[in-house]
């Protein structure tokens, strides 16, 4: 599953020397294979339980082990499925935005996916760091391809990202000093006896801060808005939904698998602290998003708020909260992929990204705008879209924990999101189109949609948004409930 994209990344470069046109199909094949195998993994995890794979046949805890349980099988499906859809849609965007760099783009794209998948499947703390760096380095370069501010934004991101990665690495080092092990399963067995050790506490703090940088949790989000706004649209639609979600996965993994829930929630009040930081992140993201005039920049702040939701659910430390967080990883990945793709489609057709210049957009791109409305409703949390269902669990979690303020924050943020999205919808649908003195009404009315290769992924994502909400009961009873530690 990871191996295919990794090898095909190298293959793409070699292929690029001979024939440029082969790169795209090769990437699609690689992504399809990894998507297919992650579904197969999920299937076998569901029927047989956790899968283990020992790299180079070294026995853990010495060798590197890949472990696939319910939690990461679930995240894998999200990562590989969405990157396949984005991959399909990227062709036209890439060819238009930077035609001479396509080979490198496809190569980096697939390296990024490799890194993300690697982070998810590995059962080894240090190996996770390696994949984290692969994904991050690919991310920095991908972002730097973009428009004018991109190299600077990417540099900024690199500094933040590297500091985050260093913190993570320091955490790994501290744990290794105390326990002598890097294997997650092994660590989780050893660690309970060290609960009062200062070194372990510091390691946990390093992990928390490092991961928070990667998942752009307030107040360590500063790199994100610039980086994702200036990145080319094909890149931002890949990294925006996935990188942060994988960060959230690592957070949940570290909190609940490596360290035991009782440690993260009771020995130190990390959960409570995380909740409150996340609540501030949610409000902060929504309010700053209100101040943006650029649609894409607005979405980056919405993304920060959404990461706040996930962190909040993880921090609540009860069954409903964590269910909400995991479900939101799926839902938010769908919504963000869809929204960033839509922005890609809008800019592809030469529209500006300024919100007040979108008047009449629904006439020219009716399908795209309909998709925008549905995913916007989902971000607000209007049923029957999937965003409602994760919010339902999060609110229930807050109520179960008797945290009324947090429940209120969740609800207020939906209202703020409503303002955000209806502002755009109003501009696109209800502002009268200025009459064009040359072309007349007919020219304005003519439909000018994005190419099919972009529309189909968008429509699939929208279908997902509409269906997965209703089916969330099934997803939870089959997958998510097993991904939650039994002690909760």
């Amino acid at each position, binding site marked *: 599953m990871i191996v295919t994209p990794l090898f095909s990344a190298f293959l793409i470069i070699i292929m690029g020397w001979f024939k440029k046109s082969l790169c795209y199909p090769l990437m699609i094949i690689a992504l399809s294979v990894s998507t297919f195998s992650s579904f197969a993994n999920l299937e076998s995890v569901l029927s047989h339980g956790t899968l283990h794979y020992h790299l180079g046949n070294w026995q853990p805890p010495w060798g590197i082990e890949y472990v696939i349980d319910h939690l990461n099988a679930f995240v894998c499906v999200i990562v590989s499925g969405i990157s396949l859809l984005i991959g399909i849609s990227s062709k036209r965007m890439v060819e238009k935005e930077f035609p001479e760099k396509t080979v490198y783009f496809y190569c980096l794209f697939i390296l990024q996916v490799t890194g993300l998948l690697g982070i998810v499947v590995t059962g080894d703390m240090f190996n996770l760091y390696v994949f984290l760096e692969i994904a991050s380095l690919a991310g920095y370069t991908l972002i730097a391809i973009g428009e004018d501010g991109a190299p600077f934004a990417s540099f900024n991101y690199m500094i933040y990202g590297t500091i985050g990665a260093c913190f993570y690495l320091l955490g790994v080092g501290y744990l290794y000093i105390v326990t002598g092990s890097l294997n997650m399963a092994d660590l989780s067995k050893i660690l309970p006896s060290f609960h009062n050790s200062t070194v372990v506490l510091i390691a946990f703090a390093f992990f928390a801060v490092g991961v928070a940088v990667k998942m752009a949790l307030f107040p360590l989000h500063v790199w994100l808005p610039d980086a994702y706004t200036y990145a080319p649209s094909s890149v931002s639609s890949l990294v925006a939904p996935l990188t942060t979600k994988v960060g959230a996965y690592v957070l949940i993994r570290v909190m609940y698998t490596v360290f035991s829930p009782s440690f993260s929630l009771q020995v130190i009040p990390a959960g409570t602290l995380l909740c409150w930081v996340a609540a501030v992140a949610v409000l902060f993201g929504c309010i700053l998003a209100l101040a943006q005039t650029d649609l894409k920049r607005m979405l980056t702040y919405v993304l920060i708020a959404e990461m706040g939701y996930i962190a909040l659910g993880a921090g609540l430390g009860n069954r409903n909260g964590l269910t909400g967080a995991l479900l939101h990883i799926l839902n938010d990945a769908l919504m963000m992929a869809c929204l960033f793709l839509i922005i890609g489609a809008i800019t592809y057709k030469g529209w500006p990204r300024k919100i007040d210049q979108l008047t009449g957009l629904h006439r020219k791109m009716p399908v795209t705008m309909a998709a925008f409305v549905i995913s916007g*409703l989902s971000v*607000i*949390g*209007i*049923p*029957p879209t999937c965003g*409602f*269902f994760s*919010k*339902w669990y999060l*609110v*229930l979690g807050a*109520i*179960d924990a008797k945290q009324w303020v947090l*429940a209120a924050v969740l*609800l*207020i943020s*939906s*209202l703020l999101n*409503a303002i955000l999205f*209806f502002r755009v919808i*109003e501009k696109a*649908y*209800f*502002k*009268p189109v200025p009459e064009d003195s040359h072309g007349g009404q007919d020219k304005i009315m003519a439909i000018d949609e994005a190419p099919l290769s972009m529309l189909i992924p968008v429509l699939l994502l929208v279908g997902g948004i509409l269906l997965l909400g*209703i*089916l*969330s*009961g*099934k997803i*939870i*009873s089959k997958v998510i409930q097993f991904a939650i530690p039994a002690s909760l």
Partner: protein
Amino acid sequence: MEVVTSIKPVLAISVSALAAVLILFTGEKRRNIRELWTLFASVIKFSIVLSMIPIVLEGKTIECTLVQLFPGVALQFRVDAFGLFFAILASALWIATSVYSIGYMRGLQAQAQTRFFFCFALALNGALGIAFASNLLTLFIFYEILTISTFPLVAHKETPEAISAGRKYLAYLLSGATLVFFSIGLTYHLTGTVDFVPGGFLQGHGSSSLLCLLFITFILGFGTKAALIPVHEWLPTAMVAPTPVSALLHAVAVVKAGVFCLLRVILYVFGPNLLSDLHFWLPLAYFVSFTILLSGMLALAQNNLKRRLAFSTINNLAIIILGGCLLSPSAITGGIFHIAAHGFMKITLFFAAGAIYVKTHKENISELDGIGRMMPVTLGAFAVGAMGIAGTPPIVGFISKWYLCLGSLEAKEILFLFVLLGSALLDIGYFAPIIYRSFFKRSQEQTGSSVSEASLFMLIPIIACAAISILLGIAPDAFVHFFKIAMLVAKSVL
């Protein structure tokens, strides 16, 4: 209670969603076919709803479970007497409104008619979903569909005024919905279920202060949609929408959905026993009475015809809720029956106001001098509706008011009798000047008394609704057994 499993409720709900899709794809160029979809869907919807009446009258319920959403909560529809009552009303009036809106929209050559009919069909989808929902969560899903699909209808004119009305509408209703969302979450947290049970299911769960919080958030949340004062302001503002929208949605489907949800909460979530144990019903009744009287007085001060009607709607919605929260059999019967009675009468009034607007572009009451001579049928129907709302026999409004008054006596709260009678006086106060002006004052500009009515598309629904208002007043059980069903509901919850 016997349960019949049938897919009928799903069909009844989804037929308008299907129509919405067809409308969207047919588009403006083939407008006759597009309108045909609306008419077809409304007739089919009504007949499916009708076919369920005999089963419910036998005391059975119809159930259909689609998919499990959460442990203990499914996306499930259940047709009981109360839901059926609301569904009959909404689907019957949809037929009348579809015919009317074709005449109205074409008469005004309005823009974006495809969007209009599309959203209209979706809104009906929401209304019936609310009617048939078997639990709070299913209800909430359709509640939000109704809210969202009505927003484009309010902002339909695309003028700055309409857009700001749309904003106001969303701000109020989404805030309300957020409160509802919280309340549903809290209910689930307390009981682990959200299924409606006649007579309530909250008894024995939670402390009384928590229940008090829950009650307040529920009332305020659903109360926004039912336009209770002080969260009513969106409704008069939303009158800037095209008249068919004001007629069906802001007199029947949307606001009645709010009232319906409130009554569901009062009678099927909290239940009469719990409410009288905790003494919640009396403060609510006072609160609602305040709305009744204040909205009546505010209506007196309006010059815009549709705004006056809007305040009258607020008044009547509060009367229905008062019926529900008095918790006596006659009051509940009267309140529920008033949902239908007010629906038919108010839609007549709105239809008439719209016909006047299409014909003369007049919106203000001060301009209506002598209009009765020009449009005698329309204004005649208007007079029927107005008198009915004031409670004059033999129009249907009399029957519901009679039972409501009886109910307040049964509840041994004489005060509410005076509230009801006072509001009837206010009704006369704000309707009489309109009728007086239009029939007995001479117009300045117009000398001749030539009759010039609106198109038949509009006239027929007006006459039909006025006629039904009178018929139901004489025989409240005619056609679809409105009265019998209302009695059934009252019996089941007490």
